């Protein structure tokens, strides 16, 4: 049973190859069904392998497929390292990916490059599985770059639009920084251990010098920051929403962006042998990102941008968990987040689909009557992420916060504020999209009010950065000019709603994986325990009563966030303008600052560098060329073309040689 593990990545790869060879001939919808079938089969195999893995000793199974890079004492094989951690990842990656593939069949309907989309998706799933299953850092890096490449392809999938192409470029360039760190980390690992295979070097980690371990962990952490969109390399993720919504759900919410967390969990023994301040750095970066992104999310109008900042924020929680040593809590949150965030993204995609491509929440409203299935599932996702018991997000987030409190109360406080903001901005989104007036309807009796709302909402935007893609300035048009006559949002087809329902169920009950007490309910924690033995995971010393107290605090915080949002957006007691300052609408002006810097001093610097390059470097090269040319122009006359002249030179040479020989033997 476990021997089938090689099939898990092989099936999506087969789908990719088939689509490359014949995707265009398959066309719509067969190409989509093929890709979906491959990933679904991969998920089925994963379940079978999971059942088999439970009988393996130590829940570890390794399989070397073939030798890849033999070079002296540097050996990299293509092998599979299957343990509780990678098994968990594989299960939720293939599961969520299969659902999103199914959803894409409906969502991408009518797209001219329909087969190509699924080709990329299959390649992405394959790369992600290589990343997770690879038995060494180099193979993981291969998958790491593979998912990155697919991410850029898919972000700029509709490359006809300049903004989408730019977003792809931005993701690529930002990730390059992180990938650099990851590569240095790999080199340092090989330098320190003489091997990059997990099974070989992780057991040796406790004996490693703290400085070396710190360096490796920090470098891998830089890689993780890039891929998982943490401060300061998060700027690509909001722009990545330019891609099709299934991509945002699969790559930029559920799977790829959690790769950084996975890698840090994988090398947890190294984190344990690094200096004490290293986990704190990870934790503070995580919780700082969680808070920072949550503040931005409170003021975005694009339905997908809110979710993008929310994703950054939630991954911040996972890094917080890694930093405080609660690795399984990070994985737990990763799984639940994959469920509810994929659900929310797919729901948002369904709304966009129903609104014929409209993404601005200011034009939505009252959609719950017209799109019931999507709305119900979206509400479940909202409650899950907001942290309302008994939904999944509540349990996983609370687990992280509990461990954060045990580690450092400051972390707990910041995390709690971020949780409050999370509940608030998600509620704001739900109220703007599902409730209130039908602002898209030109015939609505509330149209005048809607226009007033829209105008007021836009009034706060004194300036909007070009990179932010928000509709700039005050909105002056009305719904009639924005939407065609007789426009009515519609419910999406079944291929889109089925995944929503499945994910909603999972988002609702996902918490059972790891309920806080009694101890026997810590299913995920005990399952993952062998992976983190060397990582010196955190121990909880709290009594059950205090844990209950913390749960209550979390619940209160979540409900408070929802309440504030209800007061502002449902009841309209407070003018929305006052809670949506321009500084947050423009994401703290990070993008515009970067743009301003690069447009001003940065441009000057680059220009100066270019000038210096032209004058000094090119000048040297051209000078050599000119000198050569000048010499050659004179030396050309030696090459007269007369054979006899050449022969004469040969003869002169012969005479000189002879003379030299004669001087040597002039003994007589």
């Amino acid at each position, binding site marked *: 049973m476990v021997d089938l593990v090689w099939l898990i990545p092989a099936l999506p790869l087969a789908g990719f190859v088939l689509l490359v060879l014949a995707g265009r001939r398959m066309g719509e919808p067969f190409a989509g069904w093929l890709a979906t079938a491959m990933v679904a089969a991969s998920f089925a195999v994963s379940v079978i392998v999971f059942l088999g893995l439970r009988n393996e000793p130590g829940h570890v199974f390794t399989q070397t497929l073939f030798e890849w890079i033999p070079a002296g004492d540097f050996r990299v094989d293509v092998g599979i390292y299957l343990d509780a951690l990678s098994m968990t990842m594989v299960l939720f990656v293939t599961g969520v990916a299969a659902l999103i593939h199914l959803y894409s069949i409906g969502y991408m309907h009518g797209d001219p490059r329909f087969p190509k989309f699924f080709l990329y998706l299959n390649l992405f799933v394959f790369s992600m599985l290589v990343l997770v299953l690879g038995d060494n850092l180099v193979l993981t890096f291969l998958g790491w770059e593979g998912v990155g490449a697919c991410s850029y392809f898919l972000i700029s999938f509709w490359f006809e639009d300049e903004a989408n192409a730019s977003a792809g470029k931005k993701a690529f360039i930002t990730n390059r920084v992180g990938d650099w760190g990851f590569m240095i980390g790999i080199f340092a690992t090989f330098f320190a251990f003489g091997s990059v295979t997990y099974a070989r070097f992780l057991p040796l980690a406790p004996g490693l010098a703290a400085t070396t371990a710190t360096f490796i962990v920090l470098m891998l952490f830089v890689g993780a920051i890039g891929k998982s969109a943490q401060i300061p390399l998060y700027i690509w993720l909001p722009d990545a929403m330019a891609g099709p919504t299934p991509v945002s759900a699969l790559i930029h919410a559920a799977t790829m962006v959690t790769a950084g967390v996975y890698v840090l969990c994988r090398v947890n023994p190294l984190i344990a042998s690094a200096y004490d301040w290293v986990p704190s750095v990870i934790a503070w970066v995580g919780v700082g990102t969680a808070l920072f992104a949550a503040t931005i999310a409170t003021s975005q109008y694009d339905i997908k941008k809110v979710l993008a900042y929310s994703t950054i924020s939630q991954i911040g929680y996972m890094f917080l968990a890694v930093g405080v040593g609660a690795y399984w809590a990070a994985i737990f949150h990763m799984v639940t987040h994959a469920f509810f965030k994929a659900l929310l993204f797919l729901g948002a995609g369904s709304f966009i689909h129903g609104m014929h491509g409209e993404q601005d929440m200011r034009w939505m409203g009252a959609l719950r009557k017209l799109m019931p299935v999507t709305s119900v599932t979206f509400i479940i996702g909202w409650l899950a992420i907001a942290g309302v018991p008994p939904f999944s997000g509540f349990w996983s987030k609370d687990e992280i916060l509990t461990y954060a409190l045990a580690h450092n109360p400051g972390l707990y406080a910041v995390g709690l504020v971020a949780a409050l903001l999370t509940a608030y901005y998600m509620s704001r989104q739900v109220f703007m999209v599902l409730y209130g007036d039908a602002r898209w309807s030109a015939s609505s009796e509330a149209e005048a009010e809607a226009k007033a709302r829209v105008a007021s909402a836009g009034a706060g935007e004194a300036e909007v950065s070009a990179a932010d893609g928000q509709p700039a300035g005050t909105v002056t048009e009305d719904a009639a000019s924005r939407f065609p006559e007789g426009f009515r949002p519609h419910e999406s087809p079944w291929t889109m709603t089925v995944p929503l329902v499945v994910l909603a169920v999972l988002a609702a009950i996902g918490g059972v994986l790891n309920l806080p007490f009694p101890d026997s309910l810590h299913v995920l924690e005990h399952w993952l325990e062998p992976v983190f033995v060397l990582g010196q995971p955190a121990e909880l010393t709290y009594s059950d009563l205090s844990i209950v107290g913390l749960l209550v605090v979390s619940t209160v915080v979540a409900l408070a966030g929802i309440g504030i949002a209800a007061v502002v957006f449902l009841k309209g007691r407070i003018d929305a303008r006052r809670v949506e300052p321009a500084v947050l609408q423009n994401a703290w002006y990070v993008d515009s600052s970067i743009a301003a810097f690069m447009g001003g001093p940065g441009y000057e610097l680059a220009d100066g560098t270019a000038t210096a390059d032209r004058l000094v470097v090119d000048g040297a090269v051209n000078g050599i060329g000119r000198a050569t040319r000048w010499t050659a122009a004179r*030396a*050309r*006359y*030696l*090459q*007269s*073309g*007369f*054979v*006899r002249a050449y*022969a*004469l030179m040969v*003869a002169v040479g012969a005479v000189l040689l002879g003379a030299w020989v004669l001087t040597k033997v002039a003994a007589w």
Partner: protein
Amino acid sequence: MGNDLSTAYLSLSAVLFAVGAFGLLVRRNPLVMVMCVELMLNAVNLTFVTFGRMLDDVTGQVIVFFVLVVAAAEVVIGLAIVVAVSRRRPGATADDLRVLRG
């Protein structure tokens, strides 16, 4: 060690070699140039035979044999080139073929 004529033989071959070389450098007709090369080769052959006799060894003569064969091959190729060139430019001298000049 040979006899008193050995020096004379060698001097003669030196003269012949120098004359051949001079001719090669001065004459413009490719066929005459080939003849001058033959002249130089013969001068060298003469030295080989003389040296062989001075050392009382047959190797000198064997080498001359090989030089003859190679000279024949060389002349054949040289003449073929001359023929090929003359097809394209009748009456060309060595100075006329300067397409490859710098």
